[in-house]
């Protein structure tokens, strides 16, 4: 039994610890940079007896997610991790898992999609999957990755939600970074996350049909149910975030959006993931110079917290969105979503495309975005 301890540990390693504590029974996983170390570490846990689970050595990511579907059909908790092309290869099965209402959890180490071939970080892989009925939670640091994975199972398995969760962490920036992380006690995690009780599962004593055909007379009703479940998830994510705070002493905003220095700011940046850390540093620089700049970090990208975003941006006049995914032909996908959510509000919204294919988003680029917004100019590619 691991006692609660503070450790300097890599992102992948700490995520494997979090998954282990959630007690998955079967692990179908396929390695791909930069997520490889997650299955590697989990394999070690299984082989040294720390985790009572069966590993499935699949031959591709398509098989990994197909097996994940199969595991949830048998009614036990599972997990897989992937990135980039791996997630893209899973695409065919991703909406089947969510449409089947299996509360799966998958970690994605965000990485650019080829081509040209690139293994470095941006968020084009997960943002390309935003419409497939999975909840997407983005993390700023490794402590948050650990905490979010544990919360993810609780959110996914909630009877009002029953929707799978992608826990998105920036590849390399988090997966390969060593940070001090509080690893919680197994007993506390067990208290927070009760045993998974499936609704329907494969059982020879009570046979059922899985993957049934839904004709035009019912398919649309299933999609409406998923939409309602996503709306329910907005509330459940916040509740789980507060409950986690009570148990472990850490929360992330309201679970959907984390804000930094937004109370006095008229200009704010909005982002997903680890770049929030750099932005906070730059905001502190500006604060020393007497200028108030805010940060709105979306933790939940799907479901999109529209009402919550309107609330936190009520007094903000200009928002610069840091896009790490280009919806080629229509700018930044995140910006477009923010504009749709804030339609009719009196706020200028500009897109700053940055960090594609692992290009550093350093302080100078953040300052550039802030200066542009303060002058009321248009957004641009921060090359």
């Amino acid at each position: 039994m691991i006692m609660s301890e503070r450790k300097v540990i890599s992102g992948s390693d700490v995520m494997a610890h979090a998954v282990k504590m959630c007690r998955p029974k079967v692990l179908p996983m396929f390695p791909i940079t930069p997520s490889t170390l997650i299955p590697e570490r989990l394999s070690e846990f299984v082989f040294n007896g720390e985790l009572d689970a069966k590993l499935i050595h699949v031959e591709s990511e398509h098989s990994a997610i197909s097996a994940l579907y199969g595991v949830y059909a048998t009614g036990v908790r599972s997990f897989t991790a992937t990135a980039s092309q791996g997630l893209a290869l899973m695409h065919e099965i991703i909406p089947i898992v969510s449409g089947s209402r299996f509360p799966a959890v998958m970690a994605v180490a965000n990485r650019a999609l080829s081509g040209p071939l690139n293994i470095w970080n941006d968020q084009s892989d997960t943002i390309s999957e935003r419409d497939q009925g999975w909840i997407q939670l983005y993390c700023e640091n490794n402590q948050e990755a650990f905490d979010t994975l544990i919360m993810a199972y609780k959110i996914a398995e909630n009877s009002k939600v029953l929707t799978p969760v992608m826990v998105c962490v920036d590849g390399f920036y988090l997966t390969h970074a060593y940070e001090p992380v509080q690893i919680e006690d197994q007993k506390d995690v067990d208290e927070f996350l009760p045993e998974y009780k499936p609704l329907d599962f494969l059982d020879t004593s009570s046979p059922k049909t899985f993957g049934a055909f839904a004709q035009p007379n019912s398919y649309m009703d299933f999609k409406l149910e998923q939409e309602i479940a996503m709306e329910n998830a907005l509330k459940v994510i916040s509740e789980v975030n507060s409950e986690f705070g009570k148990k472990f002493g850490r929360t992330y905003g309201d679970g959907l959006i984390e804000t930094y220095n937004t109370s006095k700011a008229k200009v704010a940046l909005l982002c997903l993931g680890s770049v929030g850390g750099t932005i906070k540093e730059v905001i502190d620089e500006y604060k020393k110079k007497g200028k108030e700049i805010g940060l709105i970090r979306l933790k939940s990208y799907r479901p999109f917290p529209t009402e919550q975003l309107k609330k936190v941006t009520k007094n903000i006049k200009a928002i610069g969105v840091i896009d790490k995914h280009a919806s080629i032909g229509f700018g930044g996908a995140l910006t477009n979503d923010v504009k749709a959510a804030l339609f009719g509000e009196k706020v200028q919204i500009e897109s700053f495309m940055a960090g594609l294919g692992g290009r550093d988003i350093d302080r100078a680029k953040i300052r550039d975005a802030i200066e542009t917004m303060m002058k009321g100019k248009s957004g641009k590619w921060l090359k």
Partner: protein
Amino acid sequence: MAKEKKEVVEKKDTTKVNASGIPLNMGAVILEPGSTKKYKTGEWRTFIPMIDSTKCIKCGQCWMTCPDAAIFKAEDGSFRINYTYCKGCLLCEKVCPVKCISHKVEEK
């Protein structure tokens, strides 16, 4: 909009049914096995195959080939077609070594 929607998705929701009228549970699960049997795929048929049992040599090629298991063995050992499920693909006609299976356009 939100008020029209139910907040909780009920476990047993019988408002959704499949093509045979069987209720679909959450995630399109049917709470019984073998529901495909109730799906009468014979309605799809355009061409209707017919076996001349006097010429049938009881080799079973058609029975093995039928993708829908719509061909069955009669008591005399010859093969017959279950028209409740036969979709009229005519693969049986193609494989029959003695050409005892023919077809025509089915008039409904």
